[in-house]
């Protein structure tokens, strides 16, 4: 079943809020375009946890060089990257 963009965004957003909550931070105001490391909602370890969850949840295997701001820096970027990878693998 093809992935739905809004569903993916909602899932990533929920995970960001969940990881921030573990640090006693309220991240419900996170915008899809926010650069995650700059928001202060998540520290490096939490972002790493987000990446590990992202790989597992969407059955992705990321190369280390793909883990950068351009590909995964925001909820929008993570969604675009995922859909692009899935489209490529479906083709």
């Amino acid at each position, binding site marked *: 079943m093809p992935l739905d963009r809004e569903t993916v965004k909602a899932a990533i957003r929920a995970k960001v809020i969940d990881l921030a909550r573990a*640090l006693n931070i309220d991240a419900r105001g996170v915008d899809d375009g926010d650069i*995650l*490391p700059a928001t202060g909602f998540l*520290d*490096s*370890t939490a*972002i*790493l*946890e987000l*990446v*590990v969850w992202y*790989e*597992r949840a969407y059955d992705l295997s990321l190369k*280390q*060089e793909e*883990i*950068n*701001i*351009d590909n*995964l*820096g925001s909820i929008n970027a993570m969604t675009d990257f995922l859909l692009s990878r899935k489209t490529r693998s479906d083709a």
Partner: protein
Amino acid sequence: MPSPLRVPRVNNNDDSVRVVELAVKAGDFVTRGQIVGAVETDKAVLDVPVEHDGYVLQVLYRKGETASVGSVLLWLGENAGERVIEQTREVYAPRAATPARPTAKAQAMLQELGLAASAIPAAGERLTVGDIEAWLAKEPVPSRAPGSARITPTESPPDVAGTYHDLSAEERGMFLTVSWHRDHAVPGYLEIEYDPKAWNDYASRFAEQNKLLLSPLLALLAFRLVELAKKHPRINATVVNDRRYQYDAVNLGFTVQSGETLYLAVVRDAQEMNAGGFIATLGEVQRHAMGHKLSPSESSGATLSFSSMARWGVGRHIPVVPPQTSLIVAHAATRPSGGAVLGATYDHRLLTGFDVVQVLQSLAQAPA
């Protein structure tokens, strides 16, 4: 990795057997199926074959001794130079329903010798030094393997009722690490205060230039520690049999908390990397640790370590020295005043406080 050959059960009614034959010694090469000894009870004699090819690393019993079923008869390894990790020799002794509690002096003697109180009969209500000496006169004492961590319990059960639970793999790893720190290292700890701003600024610039998703601050600090190991090689060493064992490679251990599990994820041959390569490799092993998928080479062999509890707001922590290393750096959270501490736990057998201060002062200086 060493593997044990355990004392077999001869029959269902006997929990101990007598070793009647031992045909090998440390250093011998044996092949699968080879009979290396024999054990007997009053009812039968049983040959003991080895299950795979290998070198005999250590034989824990002698001919004529009585051994507990399931205890380690001997250790095998793929090469003759492997070290035995644990010592589990158990000379069989019928146990009283409730072992006598040792006196303080007897407890210290038991700990020194690596013996269990429950194995030694007491003449009175308490186990005394005299009881141990009398027992030693009849029983040989197992020698402890160099560099090994003893896991044999030496304590009497508490007076309060409770139940025993086997340690999980993670708990056992922590137990062995802490036991090595207690039994082998002579730990010291010291710290310096520093201004972390220069390091924070440097890490921000590095992240921006390289479009990194994660702050490279801790990775860059750890990489600087690797570089310092080239200048101060004794921080990348350990003590084996009263001699300094200098590691050829710098394998940087980095603590990673994943759920309830604490890993020491290892970047091997870090001395050959540049900052970018080190950050990428560390990022990869961190991801593996987070996913509980560290490979054996990524979870062992650390020669020098780095730990941070800054994310938890911890302003000071004193980590234990990982087995067969001499130094672990402790990074902590920035204080409200803007200052912070860099600490290190070290093996004082090898490093002086002055050595460690020099390393910490250099580490506190961010690259230009």
